[in-house]
């Protein structure tokens, strides 16, 4: 699968769900399915036990369902359910409720309640035609299970009677552990999905998730201690602040998405004005991002690369007449550099995209023998642009092979490493997605 950083979720290129299921996902889902089966079996056996506080199970299950309903779209087409996570984690870490002594129930009950809650919360999403978000749910469930399996057996009177610092530090560690599990699972899936390197994917995931993870962790601890004092009603009160925090994140994610959409759309002005072939900028950006990702670029750099690739031809707007066919590969080197320079000026005007402007400015420099050497992103755009100028929207294999050969015989202009990865990525292009 190829795809842009944030491009995966746009409607036309969504592919059938089951086609996207790969080994990592399958493994995760199998693990989650086993957990759920075991949890239901275990809970069914214990159903008559006196230890089960059904009101608590219902309250936490409802909380989780509510949180799952209010999923949060994060940059990069990710989805999180922070409120559901707070609910499930606090149920896993619950020490005691007022007047009931230590809460003793099995980790399996935690998993069962979380699974039911998450499923109920996901139903409205499915009914509304959105994706069920099964992968995310499985990742959350596995993280909760890991924490519950550690904490449920050790919860004892000590947690209630010892000074609060003791329980607090154990819980802090466990919450951190749960966050790490979720992040690693998320990175694994992501690396599989978009063809990123695992280490880069872990770093990206951690960088993106830590603020939310911090808020969730602190909220879990607050909820557990709060429930110890005020009981289950604490949960109802606590939903208020959680919601406000979530709104803040939602607005942030929304404006980021709009930003990208806008750049994407406005980059098409060169197409509408007849300077370049239809779909050129978008194809170049897809290719460039896929190549950059395989070369181990992290997400912030990939975003800059995507913007630069989308806007790489914007300098042509200053030309009096369109270049025939829009193929910059056909014009002289000084002209190419002039276009790149004009485009960079336009982007620098914004004042916030200087790194993008730099990539655009250097996009026409030859890979070898130019001083200073062009940045990696520029070399990628250079090669991807030349490739698309020659191949265009055609899906003819011969044509793309010929184009790649043309790039390969000119290692002074096009970096061989980049061209090598480009050949891999272009070979994997699925026509229907481009």
């Amino acid at each position, binding site marked *: 699968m190829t795809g842009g950083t944030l491009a995966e979720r746009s409607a036309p290129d969504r592919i059938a769900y089951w086609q996207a299921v790969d080994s990592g996902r399958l493994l995760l889902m199998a693990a989650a399915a086993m957990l759920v089966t075991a949890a239901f079996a275990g809970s069914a056996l214990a159903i008559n036990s006196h230890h089960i506080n059904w009101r608590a199970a219902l309250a936490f299950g409802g909380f989780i369902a509510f949180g799952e309903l209010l999923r949060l779209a994060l940059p990069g087409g990710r989805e999180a359910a922070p409120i559901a996570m707070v609910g499930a984690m606090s149920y896993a870490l619950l020490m005691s409720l007022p007047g009931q002594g230590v809460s003793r129930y099995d980790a399996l009950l935690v998993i069962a309640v979380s699974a039911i809650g998450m499923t109920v919360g996901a139903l409205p999403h499915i009914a509304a035609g959105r994706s069920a978000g099964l992968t995310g749910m499985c990742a959350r469930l596995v993280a909760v299970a890991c924490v519950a399996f550690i904490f449920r057996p050790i919860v004892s009177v000590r947690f209630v009677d010892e000074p609060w610092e003791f329980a607090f530090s154990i819980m802090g560690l466990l919450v951190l552990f749960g966050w790490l599990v979720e992040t690693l699972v998320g990175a694994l899936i992501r690396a599989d999905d978009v063809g990123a390197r695992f280490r880069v994917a872990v770093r990206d995931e951690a960088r993106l998730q830590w603020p939310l993870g*911090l808020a969730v962790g602190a909220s879990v601890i607050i909820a557990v*201690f709060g429930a110890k004092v005020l009981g289950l009603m604490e949960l109802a009160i606590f939903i208020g*602040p959680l919601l406000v925090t979530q709104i803040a994140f939602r607005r942030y994610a929304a404006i980021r998405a709009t930003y990208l959409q806008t750049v994407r759309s406005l980059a098409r002005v060169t197409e509408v004005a007849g300077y370049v072939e239809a779909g050129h900028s978008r194809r170049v950006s897809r290719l460039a991002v896929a190549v950059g990702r395989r070369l181990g670029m992290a997400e912030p750099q990939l975003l800059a690369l995507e913007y630069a690739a989308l806007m790489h031809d914007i300098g042509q707007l*200053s*030309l009096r007449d369109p270049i025939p066919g829009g193929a910059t590969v056909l014009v002289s080197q000084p002209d190419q550099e002039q276009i790149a320079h004009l485009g960079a000026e336009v982007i620098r005007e*914004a004042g916030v995209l200087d790194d993008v402007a730099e990539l655009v400015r250097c996009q026409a420099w030859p890979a070898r023998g130019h001083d200073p050497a062009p940045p990696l992103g520029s070399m990628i755009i250079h090669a991807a642009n030349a490739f698309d100028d020659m191949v265009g929207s055609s899906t003819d294999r011969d044509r793309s092979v010929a184009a790649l050969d043309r790039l390969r015989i000119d290692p002074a202009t096009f970096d061989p490493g980049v061209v090598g990865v480009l050949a891999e990525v272009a070979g994997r292009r699925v026509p229907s997605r481009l």
Partner: protein
Amino acid sequence: MVSRAAWLYISLVVAATTVLVGMTADHLAPIPHPVFALVTLQVLFLVCDSVKTPLTARQTMWSPSSSATLAAVVLLGPLAAALVGATSLISMKRQPRIAERFFNGAMHALSGLAAGEAYLALKGPVGFPHPGHFRFIITAFAAAAAVHVLANHGLIWGIYRLNRGSAELRPEGLESRLPLLLASDLGYACLGLVIASLWEIMWWFSAALVLVPLFVARWAMGQFAEQQRAYAATMNALCQAVETKDYYTRGHGDRVSRGAVMIARQIGMSSDRTEAIRYAGMLHDVGKLGVPTQVLQKTGPLTEDEFAAIQLHPMRGLEIVREIGFLYEALNGIMHHHERIDGCGYPMGLAGHEIPEFARVIAVADAFDSMTSTRSYREAKSLETAVDELRRGAGTQFDPLIVEAFIASLEHETWPLPAPAVKPADLAVVTVQDHDDPTAPLRVVEVP
């Protein structure tokens, strides 16, 4: 500038607070180390107050400090709540005006006191919350939170009303943001009860713990504001890039956008819609890029086909921006900005109120900027002449109400006149016939 009425209002609020707090023959509640608790909550209040963030692009400020005040209501009683609120007096924010400082201190103290009294009136038990009292606590606390939010916003609203004339204190579109603001205030007020219930276990640390999610939320808000600024800047740069082709129309999008915003404010559009029309104005002519250069450069009458190419530019613009997650309305504004009230416009020939409001607004700003800019075939018209032209077109080409709103807004805002057009030595192309100019309609070859 603070008006005289506002001064009077501020003095009244401060005096009332002083008297009321003085009259409260209250003492701190019987929890261990009440003074320590009070000071901790005051610190919490100050920290929360200093992380105030803009809730929207510019205006409404948001602060989670109500959680500290309400925690004081539950733990320590009304007097302590008032004292916590009064810390706003020494807030670390940069506040140039001493009046504002005093007003804020008094306002927070007064709303804290009111919340505390409401809590007591509903038999809310002061001290460590106990699960046995939960029923009383929850109703009393809900009332206290509501009273606090109402008192807070009521007092602020008063000062805004009195200061409406001065730009500095006027929050644009506060009204439209009010539900969100109230909701977030109530949401964070709930944290007060959470802090109070954790106090018995972890003392001051409960306040510190609660700060973590607050700071994360604030971080997200900050990121949002940053992204929004970056977004606006990028949009501007791209729109300018589109206009570089034609040096006569440079800055046109920006000026139309400002004109549209002036009208939007004048007719009282909500801040969301104002924001949308800002972008719609900026982008309204983006589709002109799809019009072949030789058509724009043609001096003689246009053929049917050439005229059709011009008539199509709103649709082309729509095509470009359609995928932007805009308000639906902004797209309508771009698509229909050349419709006329009498139904003779393009591309659809809509008439009267069939034309979306955004389009009617943009049409006026668009024509006005065209008339007051220099064109290759004429000098710029004076503002007065252009206003007269708008009046003449009202009812046939333009919506009379929008025209009047625009003229009224011109009285208190200056129109950003374009710099005199000097032909630069670059590759720019010149529009010879301006399709926006209502005084020089495009000439089309008569078909025999």
